[in-house]
């Protein structure tokens, strides 16, 4: 791995992974069909798993570009889910 690739992947893992987790926590908190305190805690529990999963992905993807794409695509989906779930 080149230094540039390592830097890029590290950023994808840290920033991208955290963003993915945060968006999952938000999206699940407003969309899960259970009481809102439960939706929140389930969202948080899923978020931490996604954060670490994203880090694993960032360093195993074939290229740094794919690492970013694999994290940003689900993040966008979750952002959409969150916006859709917001109370009107």
């Amino acid at each position: 791995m080149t230094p540039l690739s390592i830097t890029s992947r590290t950023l994808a893992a840290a920033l991208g992974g955290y963003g993915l987790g945060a968006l999952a926590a938000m999206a699940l908190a407003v969309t899960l069909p259970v009481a809102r305190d439960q939706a929140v805690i389930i969202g948080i529990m899923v978020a931490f798993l996604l954060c670490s999963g994203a880090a694993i992905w960032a360093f195993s993807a074939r290229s740094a570009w794919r690492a970013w794409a694999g994290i940003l695509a689900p993040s966008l989906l979750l952002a959409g889910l969150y916006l859709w779930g917001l109370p009107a």
Partner: protein
Amino acid sequence: MNKSFRQSMAWLHTWTGLLLGWLLVAIFITGTSAYFREEITLWMQPEVHDSTLQPGTVELAMAALNAKAPDAKSWDINLPGDRQTAVELRWQPAKQPENGGRRRGEQMLMDADSGEVVAPRATRGGNFFYRFHFELYGIDRLWARLLVCLATMFMLIAIISGVITHKKIFKDFFTFRPGKGQRSWLDAHNATAVLALPYHFMITYSGLLLFMTLIMPWGIDAAYENDRRAFFSEVFSRGEDAAQPGSPGQMVAVGPLIEQTETRFGKPVERIQITNPNRDNAQITLRVNRDPAVTDRQRGGDPTQVFQGNTGELIDTRIPANDPVSPGWRIYNFFTSVHMARFADPLTRWLFFLFGIAGSAMTVTGMLLWVSKRTQQLRRDQQPDRALKMVNGLNMASITGLMLAIAAYFLANRLLPATLAAREDREIQVFFIIWLVSLVHGLLRPNRHGWIEQVAAASLLWLAIPVVNIFTTASHLFTPLAWQHAAIASFDLVCLTLAALGGYTLWRLQRKPLPAKARRARAPRRANTASEQPAGESP
């Protein structure tokens, strides 16, 4: 699984592991001690050892509170149990001091036999390690917690990538090749990791959950429209505040109420709370310990009866464990209760302590493996470079150095005068001075000699603790008092065990002959990695 995937995982595992490894070793070792933090505090206050619950203890406690704070807002009496010998008395003063003051109110300890207030030597006890475990010491609490969370996240990633790295994880688990340097460290690292893998995953993941409101509050903000208070009051409600104090009035004797509650629940009352004592609206709340259930809610889970203070009339009986808990919170409660061993009886606590040691050993062997591997890759006459020496020295400080510092902290507790000013801070200063000395020593001698010296020093200090105890307390290993409260004798026995482990390590380190003097004179000394140190060298 393709090969390059595993290679990238090995890379990720090696570097995330090293980057925060030293911090993780300290977090693991202090966290392991925290399973026994109350027992450690008990040991560190020998003035309260000779205290046993008597039938009249509750009356004595009421009298003591009546003398000290007759018009307090509330009184709390915690009776002696498995983990404490003295009676803990707390009260909320009628007038809160301006700008805050202590939210938990005032506190004092009472001898359960005589009813006299005891003022044990000032010490932070086991709480020092407990706090260090998640907020370090001396740096801003918020930043320290964030740093610990970051290390925890790295740990979670290291666990997952570590599992992926070992395709043949169970075959590796049954492989042990002792006395072979790097190979042995690899095997020990694998064994301690796999042996307690569910524990490692649980302790790391739950560590993140415990700080969820600090590091992942976005779901709360989303669902509660940025009103975090609403979330907290919905989830962690502490019950309403006590009513305003009424007019002065008599209270009934507590003794018969205690009998009533103990008959109802079939267990001894452990905690007594009285709101608005000596008023006509006083309420007396009696609690027994709940049956441990790991998925219970955390706060206020104990079976409780509430009585009217002036009539002794039973107002309420609560068994919160029977309240329904939703599945999401059950999972959350499970992880966080297991992390803190909230439900544990003494035997389970020991089991967790051993798991904690396995976790400490896993991080320690991982760090040693890092150096060992790179040392063995050196050519015969090649000197280890500066970075390798530094990692070796830092390993020494973080492993043997921390063990030295902890032992010194306990010795300081026995040797510093009991009435010394700012005594609890002095104990902590001793801890950090010894740790610093070991760091300097480790960086100056990052080789086998350095390891031998530190292990020898640590073994001596741990051995010294029970010995010094004989001369400084009346509750050492040769007194019945120490065995009456198992925690006190166990502490000394753990010290002896650690000293013995250190001695064994020393023997292994010495047995491997050093390079002949002539060869050393010709070639510069090689950094050696204490490659014979056994894994269990942690509390």
